[in-house]
């Protein structure tokens, strides 16, 4: 009888410890996930000319992967402007870099709209759209959050504004912020190119 109590107690302790370890593992994992390998992966999207592209399309180039939408008046133009200014500072080395703007608003952002939008910032930028499912998949790969806010035609999108730097083999290297100064972005890229 007593033994049973002890084993119940023991079981409780073991369960409690397991819970602690579990929570610890979860928390560490959650923290490590930001900035850890495992960001990025295969995707299939549509470029500005309506052609199907995949992650393989851009192998051999450093990628700057940024998510946004053309309805966005401030955050997206700010990120793209900072990248464009940074690439100007890099000079010819900038040709080793491919910037991808992936829409989080596939309902409104057609390939043609994406093309004209990104070209206003830098002719080398590519604007990618896709089906809602394709966008959801690539956002998941990049751990990007987006959410529609508001009703009717004039809704806006909350969305992650991280700029991911992927190496020429498609592996995650580092991340930048959309409001990083152009000089800061240029310095980070210069180290890599």
């Amino acid at each position, binding site marked *: 009888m007593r033994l049973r109590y002890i084993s119940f107690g023991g079981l409780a302790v073991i369960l409690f410890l397991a819970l602690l370890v579990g929570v610890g593992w979860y928390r560490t994992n959650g923290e490590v996930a930001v900035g850890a390998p495992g960001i990025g992966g295969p995707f299939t999207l549509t470029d500005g000319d309506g052609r199907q592209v995949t992650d393989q399309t851009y192998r051999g180039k450093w990628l700057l992967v940024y998510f946004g939408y053309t*309805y966005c008046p401030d955050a997206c133009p*700010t990120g793209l*402007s900072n990248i464009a*200014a940074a690439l100007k500072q890099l000079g010819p080395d900038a040709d080793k870099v491919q910037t991808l703007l992936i829409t989080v608003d596939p309902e409104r952002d057609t390939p043609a*709209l994406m093309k*004209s939008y990104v070209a206003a910032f830098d002719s080398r930028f590519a604007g990618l759209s896709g089906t809602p499912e394709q966008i959801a998949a690539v956002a998941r790969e990049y751990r990007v959050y987006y959410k529609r806010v508001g009703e009717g035609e004039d809704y806006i999108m909350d969305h*992650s504004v991280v700029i991911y730097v992927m190496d020429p083999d498609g592996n995650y290297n580092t991340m930048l912020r959309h409001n990083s100064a152009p000089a800061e972005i240029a310095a980070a890229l210069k180290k890599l190119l």
Partner: protein
Amino acid sequence: MKRLLAATLLILLAMPAAAHEIKVGDLSIVHPWARATAGAAKNGAVYMRIENQGDVDDQIVGMATAAAERVEMHTHIVENGTAMMRKVEAIDLPAHQAIKFKPGEFHIMLIGVDPPLMEYDTFKMTLVFAKAGSVEIEVYVEEAGATEPAH
């Protein structure tokens, strides 16, 4: 003293370059600018600095322009790497402080820009303040990829 004089002189000399400034009461609206419309996009944002040089707090409570179907004031919050743009009805302009409308912070959103804004264009906008009244300003259009006003 000599250095102070030189500094004052420099500031005075530099002043004509900072001519794009509109005053209404104790408020100065400095360098209102917008980015050129990016391709076929329909929306834009206006940025400026508003200095309240007076002793009384004021508020910006409204704006109007013929350059877009609608205008709204927005704040821009970034939390855990996620940008959230939210409409605000008024922005405080505390006495002796400057409020910056700048990329990644407060902005005036232009919804349904028509015709598209082109670099070197200007357009008129009326700003309404709770105490200082209203004033018409001229907004300068910079290139689409501008990170700050060039003029």
